[in-house]
């Protein structure tokens, strides 16, 4: 399940990274790219496709988590964070920033494999819920815009509900557009003339 993963390793101390790099490789990672905590992670991730991000940072800062909140918004990745910081606020912030696994003092190579597997599974589980939520929200706003357009047609064009809906559907078919696009256009036009 975790063989051949491409990993981006971001550390605060690049001189100490070889241990973790070899640990990751013996736990199933394919390529391991390293970067410093001062690099622009978002930029690196937009140029390189990786399966997993590993942070090795003794004291994670707010700044770092803010960067990862942006990463989660634009190109969600499973993120494992190894740290020495047991502060409960830092832990809470890391979870909010989308860190999949936050691990204190647990970097020993024989632990890495199950940690990576748990992180990958959990990330996928979470992404599935997020995806479903986005779809349901889309449907909800589609319904809202169609209802709004129908209401405007009924009010301004003296149509019945049925006529309004049929007209939108016909426009959508004739123009080869989605009915929500037509609904948007109707709302815009009627708002402009009303």
């Amino acid at each position: 399940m975790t063989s051949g993963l491409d990993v981006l390793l971001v550390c605060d101390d690049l001189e100490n990274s070889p241990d973790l790099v070899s640990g990751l490789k013996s736990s199933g990672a394919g390529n391991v790219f390293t970067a410093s905590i001062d690099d622009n992670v978002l930029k690196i991730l937009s140029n390189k496709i990786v399966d997993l991000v590993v942070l090795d940072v003794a004291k994670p800062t707010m700044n770092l988590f803010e960067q990862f909140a942006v990463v989660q918004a634009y190109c969600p990745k499973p993120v494992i964070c190894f740290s020495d910081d047991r502060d409960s606020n830092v832990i809470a912030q890391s979870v909010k920033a989308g860190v999949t696994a936050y691990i204190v003092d647990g970097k020993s190579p024989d632990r890495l494999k199950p940690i990576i597997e748990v992180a990958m599974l959990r990330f996928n589980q979470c992404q599935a819920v997020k995806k479903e939520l986005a779809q349901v929200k889309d449907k909800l706003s589609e319904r809202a815009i169609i209802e709004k357009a129908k209401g405007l047609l009924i009010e301004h064009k003296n149509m019945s509900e049925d006529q309004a809906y049929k007209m939108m559907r016909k426009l959508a078919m004739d123009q080869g557009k989605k009915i929500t696009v037509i609904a948007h256009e109707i709302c815009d036009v009627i708002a402009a003339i009303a």
Partner: protein
Amino acid sequence: MIGDMDLLKVLLVDSDSARSALLSQALQDQGYKVIARVKPGANLLATIAKHRPDLVVIDTESPDRDMLESMSLLNQHNPMPVVMFVDEDNDVVLREAIRSGVSGYVARNTDPKRVRSIMQVAIARFREYQALKDELYQTKNELEKGKLLQKAKSLLMKHKKVSEDEAHQAIQKLSMDQNKSVAEVAENIISVLEIGI
């Protein structure tokens, strides 16, 4: 100093091993209140319901099918953070455990000093994931409610020859008069009018 009342209550599920005793001690040292130690078994869910802990910690060599099923049911019906300390490192078991909804899965022997951060991460993650699932549930509900309302309105328009506006107002009035939610009123209208056809 936090009072006893504020301590998170932990139900520890273990096989009474020496290691479990260490874990129990570590939990108490780290500020958790271990309200009960129980052995894994068929009535685990009933035991959890009886003790009403804030979270469940499981210490096991390897979780068996019964336990994973119990955790999956717990996750569906009475979600709470579950942290599992497991001896062996087995891909299949690991996958099943995550699927059953455990918030923390720790393979192999654990240094007692790490217990606190493991628990905190598991609780934070549980809350985050639960919030996401709640949002999904509520959004689905809203969508469902919108569909019901629309259907009830259409049925009223067809059977009572009223305008959409009148249908909408009728449903709102019923909801206020009967002190029921709009969705409930809509459901009633649908069941009456659909049977009446």
